[in-house]
């Protein structure tokens, strides 16, 4: 059994307090240690930890931090991506409402490591209560001298501001987020330049996910090597918060070493198996953007490379389980409605394509589909995939291609029977 970092504190309201954090979680001792180290030493430790981005892309955090130029004529920014809006993902909310100081300490250390004095937490607008809890924690941290001018008597000063989004999935994409932070529509930017060169307000910027940031204090306190060993695969360090939802007996968060379980083990050994003991139909392993897996494909290890090998992805580690009672065509229709709604509209393939895919899948679900619709769907998805500025287009195309390919007979039944067989 791997040691867990976070989950033992979830559900405890007292864990939010700075007193709990300092007394029970060695709170802010990592910050004390960090400011005695050089920036390169900290970045080196994070690199050793094999900490990969927990928001979905899986990019190594230490390498990302290393991209920030040492000298910059513009201020640098450290931004916490708390926009958590990938369907199936609900881990960052608990990190923020139960262990807010862990997130703050991670941001402050990150800021120090890249030479920044300003941090922002971009939190999705719906998390109003969580934004309030973060603000309360920030106030406590200022009072104790962990934030503000000359932190712990050092020359280092740092401020954190909570910035609320306002309901837009695309603001989880890091450059969409930065535009939104700047008071604009959350439309993703053309890259390059990447945020490390020109991010928030034109300055070099790091954007990291909440869970990535919450891992930082542990890495500084106990060392990158220790953290790396929590993971069971060579490239993936630390633990992961797997969020399981849908048709399992015990949905919720499970914290396990990176790469230490297969999907089957997670569903049957941890989540108590399939709801109502029905047959498993499908698993979406990494938030709704991840290509779907069938019931025969769940012996794969839940981590970045193993899932990539079977044509899916770990994404944000939100695992959505579907049993035989729910129509997969209807499910896909609902998923694609989301992408059509959330497409920012900048890129034609995504803006038009998502809408068309939604219409066609809806039509199939309601019995009005034709045989040629399946190839038409695949054609549209192919014309979106890889042809847009950001990953939203791919995120919509992947599910369509995988659902049609893996559950083709379900779609054909709808088309030939002119109705949903489940209806």
């Amino acid at each position: 059994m791997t040691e867990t970092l976070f989950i033992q504190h979830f559900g405890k309201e007292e864990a939010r307090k700075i007193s709990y954090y300092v007394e029970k979680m060695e709170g802010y001792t990592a910050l004390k240690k960090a400011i005695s180290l050089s920036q390169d030493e900290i970045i080196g430790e994070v690199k050793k930890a094999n900490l990969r981005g927990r928001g979905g892309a899986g990019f190594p955090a230490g390498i990302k931090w290393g991209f920030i130029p040492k000298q910059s004529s513009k201020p640098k920014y450290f931004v916490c991506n708390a926009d958590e809006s990938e369907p199936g993902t609900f881990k960052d909310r608990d990190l923020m409402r139960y262990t807010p100081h862990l997130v703050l300490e991670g941001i402050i250390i990150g800021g120090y490591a890249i030479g920044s004095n300003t941090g922002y937490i971009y939190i999705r607008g719906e998390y109003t209560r969580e934004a309030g809890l973060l603000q309360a924690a920030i106030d406590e941290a200022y009072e104790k001298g962990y934030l503000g001018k000359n932190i712990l008597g050092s020359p280092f000063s740092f401020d954190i501001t909570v910035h609320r989004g306002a309901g837009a999935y695309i603001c989880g994409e890091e450059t969409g987020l930065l535009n939104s932070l700047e008071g604009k529509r959350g439309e993703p930017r053309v890259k390059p330049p990447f945020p490390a060169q020109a991010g928030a307000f034109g300055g070099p910027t790091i954007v990291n996910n909440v869970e990535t940031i919450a891992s930082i204090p542990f890495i500084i306190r106990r060392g990158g090597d220790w953290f790396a060993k929590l993971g069971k695969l060579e490239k993936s360090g630390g633990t992961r918060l797997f969020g399981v939802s849908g048709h399992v007996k015990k949905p919720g968060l499970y914290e396990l070493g990176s790469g230490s379980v297969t999907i089957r083990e997670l569903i049957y050994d941890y989540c108590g198996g399939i709801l109502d003991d029905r047959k498993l139909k499908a698993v979406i392993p990494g938030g709704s953007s991840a290509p779907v897996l069938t019931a025969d494909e769940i012996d794969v290890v839940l981590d970045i490379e193993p899932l990539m090998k079977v044509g899916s992805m770990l994404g944000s580690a939100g695992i959505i389980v579907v049993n035989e009672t729910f129509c997969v065509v209807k499910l896909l229709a609902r998923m694609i409605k989301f992408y059509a709604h959330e497409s920012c509209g900048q890129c034609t393939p995504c803006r038009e394509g998502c809408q068309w895919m939604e219409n066609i899948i809806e039509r199939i679900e309601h019995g009005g589909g034709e045989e040629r619709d399946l190839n038409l769907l695949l054609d549209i998805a192919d014309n979106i995939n890889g042809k847009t500025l950001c990953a939203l287009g791919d995120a919509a195309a992947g599910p369509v291609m995988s659902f049609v390919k893996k559950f083709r007979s379900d779609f054909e039944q709808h088309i030939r029977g002119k109705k949903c067989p489940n209806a």
Partner: protein
Amino acid sequence: MQKLLSEAFYLEMKKLEPKYPTRLALLLPALHAAQKETSWLSPVILEEIAKYIGIHPAQVREVASFYTMYNLKPVGKYHLKICTNVACILRGAEHLVKYCEKKWNIQCGETTSDKKFTLMEEECLGACGTAPAMMVNDDYYENLSVEQLEALIERL
């Protein structure tokens, strides 16, 4: 032009100003703060915010209309947002929507004639492990059954 937003609004903004290197960055916080006071963002409110930030009202509208949380038309006293995205639909969110639509004889996106309830279908709320989930104004309600929804509405 007479100011419709309160002193408290302008005080809150004053406190936020030093936290951002540009004035435009205050736009989202300003829209949130204004909506908290007025429950929806009428054209005159958008104009007042534009004046405060120092941009054209069209730019405020351009940004405000990008985000679903800014109400550009009036909403009821209780704004129900029921998540029907993948995890919630698997756990029966549709029954919650249907219950409300039938009870109030309105469709999603509409407000009851007494202006008490606005019903919206919501995208993922980030509460998938406790699906189905719903927001009423700023608060989450999770693991929701039709019976619980019924009881909740009675209390409102």
